[in-house]
């Protein structure tokens, strides 16, 4: 009996110790987190650019009005709550109390009003494109209230108000100055979880914990270092060696290898400054015959072996695109579109029906395909696939910016390729591909040159509506039309994998503000 009691006590004590050890292990604070950055940020003011290298760093220094959670739904950030008027024209934000800039000055609604009116609506490409002409005014009736008034109902403000889309700047530093050349762009003052410490150009940017951060218990890390390591494959080796702790684009061949070690967490990054819900997409120049014929485009789409592309080009880190809007936005994605299967025989038949017949040399058509060298493998698979149906594709490899200019600005192409990222809301990243008003000589616009007044109207209706199910219906109607007309060839929904040690917890890999709540679960 006595032994039983002793044994029970021993087990009990052991259990308590084990629990204590686990809890102690989980709550470890402090330390440094080293994040891999692909290139020098250029500027640390995220409000004047949408370039991802700048946001990789700046998003930890600033805040937006809202944050997006793991499902990309808006949750409080600088705004602790908000209301939307029933007519969809007025958004009222109540700001968090006790927020201070890193220089100690209080944050107020005047900062929000100034940032939107004088910076974001002028210099942030996406925010300007999304709100220009729709936003009537930003009011600051008291220091803790901001009111956005729109000319017409506007349903997509909240998804555009996070730190990547709309970081808030300190008015007291920027007002009355040249925002683009302000010294604070290199020595930023934000409200975010980390304060700027040092920028060694080309090498690293170091941030330190904001001890006065307005969110309770955050951040945990003492130091955040962004190390600039341009080569993704070598940065993986640095990750394995512990020289960096967070790699936001682990190359496909390394994902499984790292998983197999058991020492790393690998998660598909849905969003973040590197883009969200990206679909590798090829497109025809719709102004050039015979690509202006639906049947020819359907034939080309059927001739493309997209399963092979998932395996051979995306390294298995993706899935065949089944609709124009990514499955990552479930309320807008159309799940019921008929599958388009790889079927060269059917493609050949369709081309014959369309009157695009083979010549004496067996070639029906010759197409030029200028493409960035970084994306050339998609073009090479397409060239092989299309050769089987009598279409000769001349792949023209070029450097990325040169390809962007050739395709989007000069429009000198028959076929082209882009990774179109959908963004957290179709209003941000999908609409630009299809509305006729966006057939413009600018990068990642409506590259195919697609025009359909019905589609234009449906996108407009979706933007105006506040009712999510209603917006979803509009987007599904759009996708049905697009599926019939095939103005783009939606190839692969790609996953960008993030890798970090298993001992790193609570990483917000979907957000620009990656390390706000991250902590080490064991001593380092």
């Amino acid at each position: 009996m006595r032994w039983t009691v002793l044994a029970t006590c021993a087990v009990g004590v052991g259990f308590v110790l084990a629990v204590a050890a686990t809890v102690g292990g989980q709550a470890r604070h402090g330390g440094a987190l080293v994040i891999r950055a692909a290139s020098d940020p250029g500027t640390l003011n995220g409000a004047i650019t949408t370039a991802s290298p700048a946001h990789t760093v700046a998003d930890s220094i600033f805040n937006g009005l809202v944050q997006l959670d793991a499902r990309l739904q808006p949750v409080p950030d600088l705004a602790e709550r908000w209301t939307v008027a029933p007519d969809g024209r007025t958004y009222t934000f109540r700001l968090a109390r006790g927020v201070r800039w890193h220089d100690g000055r209080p944050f107020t609604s005047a900062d929000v009003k100034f940032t939107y009116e004088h910076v974001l609506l002028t210099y942030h490409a996406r925010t300007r494109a999304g709100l220009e002409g729709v936003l009537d005014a930003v009011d600051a009736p008291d220091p803790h209230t901001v009111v956005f008034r729109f000319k017409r109902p506007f349903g997509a403000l909240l998804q555009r108000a996070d730190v990547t889309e709309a970081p808030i700047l300190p008015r007291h530093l920027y007002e009355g100055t040249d925002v683009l050349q302000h010294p604070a762009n290199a020595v930023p003052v934000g409200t975010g979880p980390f304060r700027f410490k040092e920028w060694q150009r080309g090498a690293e940017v170091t941030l330190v914990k904001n001890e006065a951060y307005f969110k309770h218990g955050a951040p945990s890390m003492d130091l955040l270092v962004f190390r600039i390591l341009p080569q993704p494959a070598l940065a993986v080796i640095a990750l394995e060696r512990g020289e960096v702790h967070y790699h936001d684009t682990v190359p496909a061949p390394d994902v499984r290898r790292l998983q197999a070690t058991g020492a790393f967490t690998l998660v598909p990054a849905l969003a973040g400054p590197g883009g969200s819900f990206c679909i590798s997409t090829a497109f025809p120049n719709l102004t050039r015959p015979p690509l202006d014929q639906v049947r020819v485009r359907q034939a080309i789409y059927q001739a493309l072996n997209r399963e092979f592309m998932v395996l051979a080009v995306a390294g298995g880190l993706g899935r065949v695109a089944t609709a124009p809007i990514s499955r990552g936005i479930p309320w807008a994605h159309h799940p019921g579109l008929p599958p388009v299967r790889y079927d060269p025989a059917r493609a050949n038949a369709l081309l014959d029906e369309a009157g695009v017949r083979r010549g004496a040399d067996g070639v029906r058509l010759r197409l030029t395909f200028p493409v960035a060298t970084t994306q050339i493998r998609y073009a090479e698979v397409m060239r092989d696939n299309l050769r089987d149906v009598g279409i000769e594709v001349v792949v023209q490899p070029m450097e990325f910016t040169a390809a962007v200019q050739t395709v989007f600005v000069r429009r000198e192409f028959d076929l082209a390729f882009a990774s179109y990222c959908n963004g957290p809301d179709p209003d941000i990243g999908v609409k630009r591909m299809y509305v006729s008003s966006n057939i413009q000589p600018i990068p990642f616009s409506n590259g195919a040159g697609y025009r359909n007044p019905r589609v234009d109207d449906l996108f407009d209706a979706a933007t105006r509506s506040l009712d999510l199910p209603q917006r979803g219906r509009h987007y599904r109607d759009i996708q049905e039309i697009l599926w019939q007309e095939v103005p783009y060839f939606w190839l692969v929904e790609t996953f960008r994998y993030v890798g970090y040690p298993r001992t790193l917890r609570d990483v917000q890999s979907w957000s620009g503000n990656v390390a706000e709540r991250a902590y080490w679960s064991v001593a380092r």
Partner: protein
Amino acid sequence: MLLLLRFAGRRMVTALPMLAAVAVVTFLLVRLAPGDPVYVLAGEGGTPAYYALVRQRLGLDRPLPEQLARYLATLARGDLGWSLHQQRPVGALIVERLPATLVLAGAAFLLATAAGLGLGVWAAARAGSVVDRLLLVTATVGSSLPVFWTGLLLVLVFAWHLHWVPVQGMMAAPAPDTAAARVLDVLHHLVLPACALALQPLASVSRLMRLKLLEALAEPYIVTARAKGLSQGRVLAHAARNALLPVLTVMGGYAQMLVSGAVLTETVFAWPGLGRLALDATLTRDYPLILGLVLTGAASTVALHWLTDVLYGAIDPRITYG
């Protein structure tokens, strides 16, 4: 000495118009290349009006001759211009990144010179032996390997497998606390990139030194030296002095190549020097920065050629500056 100064002055005067020509030609070449800094700078998803605004802010909406005239006027004031992407003076950016490149190129140069000359002399002294042939083959292979390949190989072997040295960067993050620890850390990080960068010149220099030394050893004055009963070491020293001249010319070229051509090495090893700056400038179409770097490269070429000429005189008393 006076002759040397006059020679140096004359070289400086002839260098200025050449640098101006380099500036004009590079300006035009860079603009002819496709790509547009506005789209890189401003990011994607903007409206045409927005891109037009950014273009205007950068002065890229002006006619090309006007932009060129403005740029040359800026240069005439001794100013290399303003970086479009980094929004800072080009001169400051180059000065900031120069030490990293000089450290890397300097280490590689020292390594290539010391090891290259040493191996060359060693092989020449044992000409025809198995060791000599082995060295020759190794040197031939070494001088033909691309630097990015050897760089990757070195990383895989010494950083990944053996854990002897760090993978990338110039210093650990977070950086060590004391100055002494920082210097040691930089040296530790320097090992792989310096070896990768030094390999090609090392191989070439050793081959050339061997060849020139063997040629010199066949000269009549060496026969005389041997007849006088000089030791093998003294004889080699005699011959080496003459053999060094052509090697020096090649080394001058390599010194220039190491400074301006470290792009690949710096990219592989994430070394924050001028090579990486040049690559970033090209990818972002940062015109003033590209031009600034090209001009700096051209100026350093002129300077190194001048230095080679001066050293020629120091080594060979028969060369005078007229």
